[in-house]
């Protein structure tokens, strides 16, 4: 024990100084990482094409979505280059219109949502102690649907007449056959039906997994917040995505089969499309955001050495967001005037409350903590600040009084790039730096991570902050050209310059990734001293994830185990659970007929914990009394 430091809160001291000799390391329980068959990702093309492993598919989702991020970013580069000066310099108007349409569509449909699904794939079974998602082959099917859907959208660029050019929300009549002729528009519709179906199937899979495949002891209120958020997000997907797919089929029928759902000339209603689209579109915003809220809720506790502050409040806030998000859609339509404005103003303002609660939960988690600032924590704090900046403009836009002026201007562009762009990208990099050791068995360089973070922070804010001013001053969105007024020019130049910094920020990241992948995979199971179950298995995890699980008596099973030698630190019942498991093993394991090989494995492993009163360390602790086998048993 370290000596009492008078500057330290006595409450803290009561927890005991951290004496590394008495802390339990997960690695000591796991033994030889390669004793349980192959680990890591498929190594052959056939392996990738046929895999149903949630980890391989998760990585496939994440890598694919980051490729789409690169493509969407390149399209953004075209937009910022064109807008650096008034007038047309770089591309034709037709091309520009396709570019911003596909930029938005790629970022929303092919990057942000699928990245979240990728995390759900990789992490969710690990976090609840399951060997895979409930329907592994359905999961593979979802991935391939997504990839094909994405390819169909991009192939629009080589189609006759170019890619779709009606904006990512495709308002008819402009998106009808007369407004936008050409097969590229139909390809866009089909693409989103495919990716939407992929998302719906993944949501079914996630709900089934969380409902049916939690390991014993993993009650709902012991699930990590990331898993909670994926779970709630999946319900929102089930509400929202089928509506979009249905509306898109109607639009396709209008274009191809002569129906008139949205065609005013023949009695259809363009407003109907807007209702259907935004009934998808606003839950969609939270479908994008909630998984990333989950990411930072995993990261703040680890680097603050504190539990999540207000866990249940946080879950309730997420549920409130999920519920309210289905009743705010028409705030995208205030300017139509064809609404009960106060109702949608009320729900839209109200959804700010649970969102604000989350911010204070995160700050409360850090409060009184012991904060260290490794790359994941830097990005998580960057997320927090960016998200608040985007949130307060959201409150402004929720008021129709102000929205009448601001909607469809660059103010809205700035707002949703803060909430959907900034928060997603900061939290995404937080996730990448945080789980990189788990996925690859390697660490990323902190020095390059620091460069990456500060360049991204600078680039992001320089690019998007001035867009608030542009929009308020009257620059509409979706224009390749603007009036050559002094400040318009200056602000657009600043914004385009900021984009260059954003691009530069990707350089240290890519160097970091390449360097790390070339280094040997030597990281242990739990390099960050984290909390949730994915850190209780090898890095990368073994096939079917777990060879061993700690008892689960709180939302931090790995933390409870690490501190099990200290009174009153972990969950109160976790020590009892450990004893019970030990007693069970002593009583029952001798009855088991072990083969020589099994006996060998059982008796040669390490024995790190000295809890038994007899002081005799026996290897039985390693066997899992709570469930008898690894996760495969409950499938």
């Amino acid at each position, binding site marked *: 024990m370290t000596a009492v430091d008078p500057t330290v809160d006595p409450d803290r001291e009561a*927890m005991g100084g951290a004496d590394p000799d008495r802390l339990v390391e997960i690695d000591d329980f796991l033994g030889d990482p390669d004793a349980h068959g192959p680990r890591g990702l498929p190594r052959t093309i056939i392996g990738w094409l046929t895999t149903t492993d949630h980890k391989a598919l998760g990585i496939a989702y994440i890598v694919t979505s980051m490729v789409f991020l690169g493509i969407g970013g390149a399209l953004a580069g075209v937009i910022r280059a064109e807008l650096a000066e008034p007038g047309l310099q770089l591309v034709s108007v037709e091309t520009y219109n396709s570019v911003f349409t596909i930029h938005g569509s790629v970022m929303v449909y092919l990057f942000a949502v699928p990245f979240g699904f990728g995390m759900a794939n990789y992490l969710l079974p690990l976090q609840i102690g399951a060997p895979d998602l409930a329907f592994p082959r359905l999961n593979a099917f979802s991935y391939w649907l997504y990839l094909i859907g994405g390819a169909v959208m991009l192939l629009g660029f080589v189609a006759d007449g170019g890619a779709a050019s009606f904006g990512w929300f495709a308002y008819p009549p402009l998106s009808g056959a007369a407004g936008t002729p050409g097969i590229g528009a139909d390809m866009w519709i089909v693409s989103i039906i495919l990716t939407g179906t992929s998302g719906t199937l993944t949501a079914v899979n996630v709900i089934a997994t969380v409902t049916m495949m939690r390991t014993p002891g993993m009650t709902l209120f012991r699930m990590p917040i990331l898993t909670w958020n994926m779970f709630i997000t999946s319900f929102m997907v089930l509400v929202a995505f089928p509506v979009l797919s249905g509306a898109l089929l109607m639009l396709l029928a209008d274009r191809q089969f002569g129906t008139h759902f949205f065609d005013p000339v023949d009695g259809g209603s363009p407003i109907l499309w807007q209702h259907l689209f935004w009934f998808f579109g606003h839950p969609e915003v939270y479908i994008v955001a909630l998984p990333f809220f989950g990411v930072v809720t995993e990261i703040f506790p680890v680097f603050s*050495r*504190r539990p999540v502050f207000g866990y249940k409040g946080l879950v309730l806030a997420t549920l409130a967001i999920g519920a309210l998000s289905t009743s705010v859609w028409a705030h995208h339509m205030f300017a139509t005037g064809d609404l009960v404005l106060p109702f949608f103003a009320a729900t839209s303002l109200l959804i700010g409350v649970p969102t604000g609660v989350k911010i204070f939960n995160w700050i409360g988690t850090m409060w009184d903590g*012991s904060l260290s*600032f490794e790359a994941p924590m830097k990005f998580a704090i960057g997320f927090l600040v960016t998200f608040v900046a985007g949130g307060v403009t959201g409150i*402004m836009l929720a008021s*129709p*009084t102000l929205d009448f002026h601001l909607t469809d201007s660059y103010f809205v562009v700035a707002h949703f790039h803060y909430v959907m762009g900034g928060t997603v990208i900061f939290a995404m990099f937080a996730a990448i730096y945080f789980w990189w050791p788990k996925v690859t068995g390697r660490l990323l360089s902190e020095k390059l991570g620091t460069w990456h973070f500060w360049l991204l922070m600078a680039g992001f804010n320089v690019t998007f902050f001035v867009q608030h001013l542009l929009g308020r001053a009257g620059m509409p969105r979706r224009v390749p050209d603007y009036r050559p007024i002094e400040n318009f020019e200056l602000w657009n130049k600043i914004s385009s310059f900021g984009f260059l910094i954003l691009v530069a920020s990707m350089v240290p990241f890519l160097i970091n990734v390449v360097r790390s992948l070339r280094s040997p995979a030597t990281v242990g199971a739990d390099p960050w001293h984290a909390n949730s179950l994915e850190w209780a298995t090898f890095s990368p995890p073994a096939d079917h994830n777990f060879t061993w699980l700690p008892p689960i008596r709180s939302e931090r099973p790995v933390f409870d185990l690490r501190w099990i030698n200290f009174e009153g630190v972990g969950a109160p019942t976790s020590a009892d659970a450990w004893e019970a498991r030990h007693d069970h093993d002593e009583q029952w394991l001798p009855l088991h007929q072990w083969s020589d090989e099994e006996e060998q494995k059982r008796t040669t492993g390490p024995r790190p914990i000295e809890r038994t009163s007899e002081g005799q360390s026996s290897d039985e602790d390693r066997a899992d009394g709570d469930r008898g086998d690894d996760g495969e048993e409950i499938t």
Partner: protein
Amino acid sequence: MTSRSPLAPPITDQADDIDRVWDVFLYLALGVLAFVVVLVVYVVIRFRRRDDRLPQQKHYNIPLEIAYTVVPFVLVVGLFAITVVTVNAIDDTDTDPDLTVHVTAFQWQWEFEYPESGVRIIGGADTDAPELVLPADSSVLFELESLDVIHSFWITAFRFKRDIIPGTVTEFSVDMSDDAAGEYPNAGVCAEYCGLDHALMRFSVRVLEPAEFDAWLVEQANDQEVAG
């Protein structure tokens, strides 16, 4: 900033109201942002890791959690009250206006018609942006109609836009301020993306004193009669 801002000054009573609401929301937003940023900076400095001790592990504080739920709720209710009061005033259509303007939007130009006098101003492909002329100190009703796709009629000096949906006539009314007279060359724009030349669908606004406006209207009516 106001002197150099490209944003046109407010020229309707409604726009004055909207700017007042804007100020309330803006200062509150900046206040909330500053509060959170200060909290984060404080936490980052005050609670940075100094040694390997485990900090206290208290994971909830019900009174505090209630407080940080209730306070934002109260703020939001206040903002909602301001919103409802103003939005009802803005959205109220004047049934007996001093002037009616019929706006027709089409890809990618505007037509402004003054039905009482039959005057029409049409923007063409090779003309400059059309000019919408309005009287100061009067109430004006806008009837909006589209010939093709959705457009949005945005006059930045009104702090207001209204979508123009084909198949229906949308409308709104404003009360022009008594000191509104002046030229607003950059004030009008189509805000809803409407296809190829969406960016060029701009118009200017000129506000005349009521008497000058009447004279202008008579002059235009005569000109168009001669021309027509």
